[in-house]
Structures are given as C-alpha cells and as structure tokens.
C-alpha cells in the first residue's frame, strides 16, 4: 500500500504540483499558456526574492486563508518560490532573534525585498495601540516600507483599515496606502483569495513590475469585475427568483440571495469565478449572501448585512430606520401638508367670498 500519510508530509513540492501552481496563477492573471514557462522560470530562479511579512492590527485570518490554499499548496509554494524571511506567525525565530532577522533582511536586501503588510495601522496618540518589540506599527512601517521594492497590502485591514477603522475608529486606524508613499497593491478581502496574492507576486517576479490596478489600488485581474456578474445564481436574479428568507423553500432551491442582503452587485472581487479552498465554494454557493468585504469601509457601508441598503440615521433624534420607511413617512407628511394647504385656501375663499376676476 502506498505510504500516503508520509508522502503528504514530505515538505517538498513536486514538479507536477509546482507547474500546476504556476499555470493556475497564469490563468488567474489572464495570461496565455505560452507565458507559463516564463512564470516557471521566474519562480525557479536561484535568487528567491526575500519577503518581509508584517502583522499589525489583524486577526491573522489572511495568513490562515493562505495556509489553506491548495492547487498550488500555497504554503509550500511561498516557501519555495520566495524566501519568507520574516513572518511572525510562521517563523521559527522569536524575540531579539526575530527582530535581528527583520533588521538584517531590510539592510541586506535594501530596495530588493517585497513587503507584505497584514493588518491596519493605528495612528491615534502616535500609534501606541499596536506595538511590536517596543516599536509602534507606524514606526515599523515607516522604517521598512521605503526600503521595499514593492509593497503589497493583504486583507481589508491593511488595505482600507477594516474592522479597526469602522466607526467610531477608536484607534485612528488606517490602511497601508494612507501612510506609504508610492504604489501599494491592495489585495483586499476578509480574507482575500490567496490566488490574488500569488498572482501579484508572480506577476512582479515575471515582469518586474506590478499588475494593472483599479482606482482603489486593487489588481484588475482579481478585482476588475463584480461578484454579481459571474455569480452562479445570476440567472435567478434576472428571472426574478429570490430567496425571501433564510431557510425557506426558495433558499433550498438555491435562488438569488439579493432580497436577503447579498452585496454581490456592489462588490468587486473574483470570488464567484475563482472560489476558495480548492473545493469550489464561496459564500453564495453555500447559501449566504456576499457581505462586500473587499470594498472600502465595508463594516460601515455594507451593514446591515441582511438588508439591501444601510439604515438612515436622522441626526439629533437617535432614530435609525430603513430608507423606505423614512421616505414613506416624509411622503405622507408632504401629502398631508398639501391637503392642509388646499383646505386653508378653500376655507379662505369661503370666508372672504370669491373675488371677481380682474
């Protein structure tokens, strides 16, 4: 019997898996198959580009998502293609040793290493709300970022501030692009698809430049379209078949989740096309609407997650209601005012008598 247990534990990437990984990345980038050898070449160059991975205000979910990637087994591919010199979650070193690695890497590969940032950076009170090795996140970023060849922000926290920056943003958190001069590639999402990160890194290695970005700094190959436009439930949307509430008959029929608050029509991402975890799933395929996690300020603007639109906050009154009930009330008041105005006019005419036409 084949020794499958030990085989899967061998910490080496076989050639087949490696080529599959490169082909997958080429497909995600929208490159032709003739580019695959170039990608392979770039990925197998003797000098693996050093990567520094900084963690700030985050949950490590983006790293978790990366570890769960397969086809390619992204954890191994990352270790084989790039030299991940500093990554607090997976590195063996700790304490002063770890700090020395970071310091040595940015000095030795000044202007050559790739910086990946995970997590938002608090700026309030000089950034004291996130400290590593006695230094604030702001100071670490200011020290490392200018020396990097490319800066990649991974996850919605690092790109747009994420949940930390949600109102009232108590620590004054911001994304990397607010603090770093020069281009930042935003791989947004909570968590983002690992394919987007891998594609960006391979694009950089192959062409020595960053992929084309949209107006929010997100690579177009992954964030150029809305989830809605590639959604497998889109035909149900067009034909007007909707889930009315979770668990109903239409939900069991896998109809469109629009009416239970799916934000796919507002969200730029490739989840519906690329999907996650090598088992072809994403939220909508398992019956939950998209929550719009790749968009700026999604915690503030995409909530309530199970309603189509945000609620209206009427200033000074503490009233929070949905837009249509506010609209209907204002319309009712308007109609009443019109009625009263007309009645006053008629009353006045009755009292004063109709004046002769001049």
């Amino acid at each position, binding site marked *: 019997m084949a020794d499958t247990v030990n085989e899967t534990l061998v910490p080496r990437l076989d050639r087949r898996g490696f080529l599959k990984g490169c082909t997958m990345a080429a497909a995600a980038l929208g490159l032709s198959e003739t580019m695959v050898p170039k990608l392979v070449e770039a990925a197998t160059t003797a000098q693996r580009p050093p990567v520094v991975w900084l963690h700030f205000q985050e949950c490590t979910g983006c790293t978790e998502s990366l570890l769960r990637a397969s086809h390619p087994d992204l954890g191994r591919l990352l270790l084989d293609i790039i030299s991940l010199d500093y990554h607090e979650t997976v590195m063996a070193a700790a304490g002063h040793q770890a700090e020395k690695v970071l310091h040595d890497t940015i000095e030795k590969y000044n202007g050559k290493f790739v910086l990946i940032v995970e997590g938002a950076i608090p700026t309030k009170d000089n950034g004291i709300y996130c400290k590593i090795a006695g230094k604030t996140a702001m100071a670490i970023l200011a020290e490392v970022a200018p020396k990097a060849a490319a800066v990649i922000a991974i996850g919605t926290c690092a790109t747009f501030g994420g949940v930390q920056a949600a109102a009232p943003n108590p620590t004054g958190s911001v994304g990397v692009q607010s603090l770093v001069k020069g281009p930042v590639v935003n791989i947004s999402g909570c968590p983002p698809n690992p394919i987007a990160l891998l594609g960006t890194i391979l694009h950089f290695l192959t062409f020595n430049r960053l992929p084309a970005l949209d107006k929010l700094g997100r690579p177009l190959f992954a964030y150029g379209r809305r989830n809605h436009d590639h959604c497998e439930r889109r035909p149900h949307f067009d034909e007007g078949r909707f889930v009315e509430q979770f668990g109903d008959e239409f939900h069991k029929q896998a109809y469109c989740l629009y009416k239970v608050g799916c934000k796919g029509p507002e969200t730029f991402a490739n989840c519906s096309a690329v999907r996650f975890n090598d088992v072809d799933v994403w939220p909508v395929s398992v019956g939950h609407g998209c929550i719009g996690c790749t968009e700026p300020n999604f915690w503030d603007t995409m909530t309530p997650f199970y309603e189509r*639109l945000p609620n209206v906050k009427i200033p000074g009154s503490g009233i929070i209601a949905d837009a249509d009930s506010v609209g209907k009330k204002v319309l009712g008041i308007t109609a009443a005012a019109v009625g009263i105005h007309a009645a006053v006019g008629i009353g006045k005419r009755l009292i004063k008598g109709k004046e002769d036409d001049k």
Partner: protein
Amino acid sequence: MTYEKKKCWSILLRLYHWGLALSIVFLVTTGIYINGPWSNTMQLGTGLFPMAWMRYTHFVAGYVFTAAVLIRVFLYIFGNAQERITDCLPITGRNIQNLGKTLLQYSYISDAHDERLGHNVLAGLTYLITILAAIFQLASGFFMLFPESATWQGLGVSIFGNQQEARFIHHLLMWWFIIFAVIHVYLVIWNDLTGPEGLVSSIFTGVKFKHKKA
C-alpha cells in the same frame, strides 16, 4: 381687463420637461422594483425575466433622463431670458422681491400676485436643486451601470466611496423626486387656479397669459 399671449418656454424646454417627467415616472417605478423586487417568479422556466426587463427599462429611461438634464443645463446658460439660471436665483432686487412675495402668497398671508413671465424664484430654486440632485443621480447611476469603466470608478469612488454608498444615495435621492413631484403638481394646479397665466397649459404651448398694458 384684457390679456395678451406671451411666448415664454422654448420647444427645447418643453421637450426637456416632458422627457424628465416621463423618465422619472419610469425610473421611480422600475427603481423601486430593482431595489426590492416585489414579485417572485418562483417557478423555473417561465421566461418572464422581470428583473432583466425592469433593469432594461430603467437604463433606457435613465438615458432619456440624462438627455433631459443635459438640455436643462444647456438652457441654464444659453436659453431664453426665462430659462437662464440668472432668472432662477435670488441675485437681483427683482428676484429677491419675488421670492418674498411668493412665500407670502403661498402661505395665504397676502393675495398679491407678483406677475412675471418666467418661474417664480421659489420654483426656480427648487428646480435648480432638483437638477443638482439629478446630476448626483446620474453620477451614482453611471457608476453602478459601468462597473468595469475606470473613469466612472474613479469618479464614483471619489464622490461616494463604494458602490453600496452610491446605491444608498441613489435610493435616497429617488425620494426627493417622488416628493418633489407631489408638491410640484399640486402647486402648479394651485397657481393655475389662483393666477392668470395659465401655468398648466404653458408647458404644452410655451405661451403664458399676461395682463395687457394699456
């Protein structure tokens, strides 16, 4: 007392008015459906495509609306004396006086009717606000209609932040158009009853009635 006919609204303004009015009726109806589709086809294979049709109608009406708004903006600058933006703003003594008189008349405090050929300034200001709201409707609408266009994305992101915010503003502004329509239709009929101009027919004929000066 005798009246004379006076040319007031150009054909372009009347076309703008009815283009805008009709497109708003279609946009609001289809827009309410798109936001909260009240029907549910439920069965497969009916071939009805209600959401697709509603969206298609919404987009066609949207282009009519766009054309109407562009015409109005053009007329604000190049229109006749009644159509220009300077006639709608309380920037001259005559206009400020008209605004005050109109408010007094509308609140039944005074019976004096300030006769002038164009809009009264209160109406002119309200229409100007409506056109500004329409411009935001267009910006948010095209931002949502062309998700893959870098130009619209750049504009939309800088004004609204993201598509969901644009949709929210788009929806809230819809209520302005509904409420505006109610007040507008009421006040036009009210003016037609109380004033001599023949306001309702003027938007069909372009002609208003004025007291003939001896």
